[in-house]
């Protein structure tokens, strides 16, 4: 078919290119097959992705609109039953009116935003300072680098449990056996012990929401600790690749150390900084397992330190699948908004 539309001359040229030999139909087919044989290589990945990546996206968009979707009530086909279509799931999730005594979406959203937007900038700044310090020394640099990288390789559930022991008051509430290291250190400065994680944990009330600031501090400390290694690694290797001539030139011009740091180093590694901020915020919006590690499955008391992902899994666990789908779409929307904002900002601010 194709050949018919072409001019004869082109056809001729084609055939000449093919080693000047006229191809039989079988050979042509073989050649075409060989050209497309890349599909054989990608087939396993493509098939798996169709089942476990492409289909879930479609299915999430469909299932979120099924009202009263419950995993506990399976129909004849083995598919979960539902009760008509509509925005019911979204409305109930956003209003906090799920009627199950589970987590509250607004509370989880606020928690997630606080954790992310406090811990990510702090740990990025700290990582920048550490990397600059690391970059300015020569002896035992590798040793420091290795130690500082250690927390990266840990299991957030396991290390969450370790951090919990730092803050936890062990024993009965009225006469604790030990108040934990953090309280002990605070005690040296005359601060009386705080129940960081327990029932008596201090919190501010905002209407129906609570702001358990002590628990927030625990989470944020953990987030900073666990977020540092990756950031240091990236920033340090970025610093090492900055052309040393810039520094020499600046020094000849009499620039001070601070000026060099903020006027040369920071702009030179601004792509990495913006990358870290973006991935940090993305990761922060999806955090979950650290909260479980620190506070167990209940995510504090009545899910008061729950995150959005925690919210999703809590409803999935209690088989209110419809709410989980709706919340996951809301999370998706939030992440899209952050991505859009980031594209806007980074185009303006980052110097490549």
């Amino acid at each position: 078919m194709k050949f018919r539309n072409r001019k004869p001359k082109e056809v001729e040229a084609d055939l000449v290119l093919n080693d000047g030999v006229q191809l039989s139909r079988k050979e042509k087919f073989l050649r075409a097959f060989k050209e497309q044989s890349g599909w054989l290589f990608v087939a396993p990945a493509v098939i798996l992705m169709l089942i476990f990546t492409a289909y879930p996206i479609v299915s999430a968009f469909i299932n979120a609109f099924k009202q009263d979707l419950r995993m506990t009530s399976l129909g004849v086909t083995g598919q979960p039953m539902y009760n008509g279509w509509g925005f019911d799931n979204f409305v109930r999730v956003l209003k906090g009116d799920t009627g199950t005594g589970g987590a509250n979406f607004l509370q989880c959203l606020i928690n997630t935003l606080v954790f992310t937007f406090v811990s990510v900038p702090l740990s990025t700044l700290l990582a920048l300072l550490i990397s600059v310090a690391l970059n300015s020394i020569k002896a035992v640099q590798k040793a420091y680098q290795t130690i500082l990288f250690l927390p990266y390789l840990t299991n957030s559930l396991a290390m969450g449990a370790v951090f919990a022991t730092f803050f936890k008051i062990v024993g009965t509430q009225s006469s604790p056996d030990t108040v934990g290291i953090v309280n002990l250190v605070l005690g040296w400065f005359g601060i009386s012990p705080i129940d960081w994680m327990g029932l008596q944990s201090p919190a501010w009330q905002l209407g129906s929401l609570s702001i358990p600031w002590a628990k927030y501090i625990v989470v944020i400390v953990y987030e900073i600790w666990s977020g540092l290694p990756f950031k240091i690694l990236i920033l340090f290797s970025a610093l090492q690749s900055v052309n040393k001539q810039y520094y020499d030139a600046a020094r000849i011009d009499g620039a001070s150390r601070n000026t060099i740091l903020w006027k040369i180093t920071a702009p030179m590694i601004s792509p990495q900084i913006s990358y870290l901020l973006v991935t940090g915020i993305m990761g922060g919006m999806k955090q979950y397992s650290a909260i479980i590690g620190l506070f167990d499955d209940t995510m504090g008391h009545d899910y008061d330190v729950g995150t959005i992902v925690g919210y999703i899994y809590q409803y999935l666990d209690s088989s209110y699948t419809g709410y989980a789908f709706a919340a996951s779409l809301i999370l998706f929307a939030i992440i899209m908004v952050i991505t859009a904002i980031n594209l806007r900002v980074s185009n303006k601010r980052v110097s490549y």
Partner: protein
Amino acid sequence: MFDLLVLSSVAANWLVALMVIVILAEVGVVVWLALSIRSRKTAKSASVVGQWDLSAGDEGFDVQKVQKRERAKSIIKTVFVYIFLTICAVLAFLPFYWMVISSFKTEDEYRLSSPTFFPTMGFQFKNYTSVIAQTDSSGSFLQVLVNTLVVGLISTSLGVIITVLTAYALARMNFKGKNILFAAMLATMMIPGEMFTISNYVTVSTWKWNDTYTVLILPFLVSVYYIYLLRNNFMQIPNSLYQAAKVDGLSDMGYLIKVMVPLTAPTLVSITLLKFIGTWNSYIWPRLVNGTPDWQMITNWVSRGFTDRMGLYGGRYSETLDTLKMAAVCMVSLPLFVLFIFCRKYIMHGVSKSGTKG
């Protein structure tokens, strides 16, 4: 009640330990500085021409005084830098130290009103044996260990094979729809994984895949990110190599195995390690799909409460015990550290690659 205002002997213990570390670091710094100043001097006199270093004999030369002052300044700065780094390193390491010593303490010592810096009542290996021996409704250690190793090995090896094949096709072969496929794959990285997880949960539940290894392996075999990483690596290999191989009569598959894979070995090792670590740390998915504790993974096991079922303390503690938990935590963390010690280069390479190219 708490009598914390008094700097207790144990608190002092802590301080002393901290100071010892700082002092050791300081000694190191000073030794290094002494060495480096000498070498800098020789370097200077060797490299800088003339007037600056003209002589030791030229006393009263202004520049030398300035130089000296500058040098003193920079030494002070360096010392501060080292102190800062040492504090950071100590803080980064503290949780690991605390985890290990807590796992060896008796519960009684752990609960002392002022924590001890070292297990003074002897090392309690019983904590470990007790944790390993606990086999009841919450699943046994050996079972979850076997699960994790089986799932880790299978999913890592299959995953790496799939990654290599896909990355090769995307980097070197030409087929219709390649670019669209690649773009579509990259686009899925934007979507939060939770959306996949919950849909997949519904899928595998309706397929009755719960409590199997398959369900732990299949959904996470393909990771677009590693495909992307390896593809970029493959692209960096010059095309002339491919043509040379073709001339020598090597097939695509042969070229991939004999040329590409050896050339990108570091990245492949990194991917393998990171994938295995990912399986080791997986928690959410196993808990969701495999309700039976004996089908779960090692991280799920750690997140359980460990009570004194062996009667180590004669039934004095009925609640979950932190010392036992720390023993479990140590056992889960140890393999990661061993891996890190032996494969530090590859792991850091992989992580930093994933950083700069993300």
